[in-house]
């Protein structure tokens, strides 16, 4: 199908988060007329992420990203932690290779999104902050419903392509019929604080030098056994600390999310990191946890869906990703839209190249590789029993109490026998973990 009515813009992007900004930036650089609409008073004012951005993708879009963008620290230390009430078993992975080339950085979205929006403006996009899009405008065509623009209050703006980049709870994609209401186990709630601390204190507490950064991920007692996890990331002179808990499990266990967050902040192994800090910011966000199952229809006549709105987030237990997937989807979408505009055909059939490009890129391939991760992370035992068994085995090895020692294998067997875990569960979870990760 070809366009007939005169549009106000070639492309309207709804939402100035990472996916929206990168899409708008690339299309504006191609000379396309682009309107970027943001509901918040400024780009970034309503956006929230844990804070680690795997940066290789965005460096392809902005080659000088690491020097120019408001990046906090470059992650060289990943600390993966089974956190129990009185013990903790962790893998502390530090690697200089992660800094050269840089692989991941911490960011604060209020700064990063504002910078991205500036880049969009420099490239020629028009930014309209403080505006809520009420609905997309549609017309019936021979091939069905076609999106032809947006309505914001009394204003109607027409475009050849609309990009829905309005976040995990995308009202636009739902209203257009592209997404159904998600089941609760696909969704989690994230709660986060940014806590200020002197730069030197952070470097001493986390064993960092210069602009090195650390990312701590924890499961277990940090969420009081509710499916999810805790995180603690270093910024230049602040820490980002938070939890993410699955809504279905939170409801089933009748826990209150703020009680869990307080519990994490006050945990004996976490509180010392925060000692003397002052709260700068408190926020929350809905988080997509469904993996590949959440990525449904992302293209229709005249519209594509990108970033969180397309369900593109990935929690493997080791890495928690969203921002880099948003970048990847924006790159794929911008290429497909630009090509469709050149062809003067923005029908679903032509815009479907976005989906093809997405699934040919690291984004779609990783979503497929880790398709089984969400169900693996729903294993209850991960959030209590495993951490306790690991700690008990190590306690048996390190607690030299003048009693004769036993081989570690026997200590492990005894620890397992004393726990509610069964060997068959261990084997089953081991196989599931190997397949998922």
């Amino acid at each position: 199908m070809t366009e007939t009515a005169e549009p106000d813009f070639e492309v309207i992007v709804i939402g100035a988060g990472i996916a929206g900004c990168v899409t708008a930036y690339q299309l504006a650089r191609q000379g396309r007329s682009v309107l970027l609409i943001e509901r918040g008073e400024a780009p970034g004012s309503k956006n929230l992420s844990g804070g680690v951005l795997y940066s290789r993708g965005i460096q392809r879009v902005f080659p000088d990203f690491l020097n120019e963008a408001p990046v906090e620290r470059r992650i060289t230390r990943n600390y993966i932690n089974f956190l129990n009430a009185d013990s903790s078993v962790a893998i502390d992975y530090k690697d200089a290779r992660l800094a050269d080339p840089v692989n991941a950085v911490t960011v604060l979205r209020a700064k990063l999104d504002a910078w991205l929006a500036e880049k969009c403006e420099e490239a020629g996009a028009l930014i309209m902050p403080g505006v809520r899009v009420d609905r997309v405008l549609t017309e019936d065509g021979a091939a069905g419903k076609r999106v032809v623009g947006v309505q914001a209050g009394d204003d109607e703006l027409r475009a050849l392509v609309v990009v829905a980049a309005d976040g995990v709870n995308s009202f636009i994609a739902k209203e257009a019929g592209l997404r159904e209401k998600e089941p609760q186990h696909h969704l989690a709630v994230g709660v986060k604080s940014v806590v200020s601390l002197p730069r030197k204190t952070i470097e001493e507490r986390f064993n960092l030098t210069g602009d090195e950064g650390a990312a701590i991920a924890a499961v277990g007692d940090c969420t009081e056994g509710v499916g999810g996890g805790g995180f603690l990331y270093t910024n230049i002179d602040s820490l980002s600390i938070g939890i993410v808990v699955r809504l279905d499990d939170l409801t089933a266990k009748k826990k209150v999310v703020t009680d869990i967050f307080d519990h994490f902040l006050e945990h004996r192994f976490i509180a010392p990191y925060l000692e003397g800090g002052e709260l700068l910011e408190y926020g929350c966000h809905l988080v997509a946890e469904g993996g590949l199952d959440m990525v449904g229809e992302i293209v229709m006549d005249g519209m594509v869906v990108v970033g969180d709105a397309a369900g593109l987030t990935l929690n493997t237990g080791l890495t928690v990703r969203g921002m880099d997937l948003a970048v990847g989807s924006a790159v794929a979408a911008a290429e497909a839209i630009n090509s469709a505009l050149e062809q003067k055909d923005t029908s679903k059939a032509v815009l479907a190249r976005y989906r093809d490009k997405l699934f040919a890129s690291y984004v779609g391939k990783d979503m497929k590789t880790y398709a089984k991760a969400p169900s693996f992370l729903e294993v209850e035992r991960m959030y209590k029993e495993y951490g306790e068994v690991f700690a008990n085995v190590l306690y048996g090895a390190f607690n030299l109490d003048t009693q004769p020692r036993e081989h570690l294998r026997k200590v492990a067997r005894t620890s397992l026998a004393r726990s509610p875990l069964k060997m068959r569960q261990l084997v089953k979870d081991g196989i599931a973990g190997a397949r998922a990760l």
Partner: protein
Amino acid sequence: MKPLSVPERLTKNRFNLDEQESHIEVNQEIAKATGTGKALVACCPAHVYAEESDGTISV
């Protein structure tokens, strides 16, 4: 770090209130029939919702 209540935490943020168009409205019938009201109270990190003595959910 000094423990803070949720209202104290929220004072650290800067808000622009949309007074002309409050967008949260709880359907009391659905909240009561499905038990969703209690879930709203438990899940909201900003403590926007509260359960009143008559079982209704206030915002």
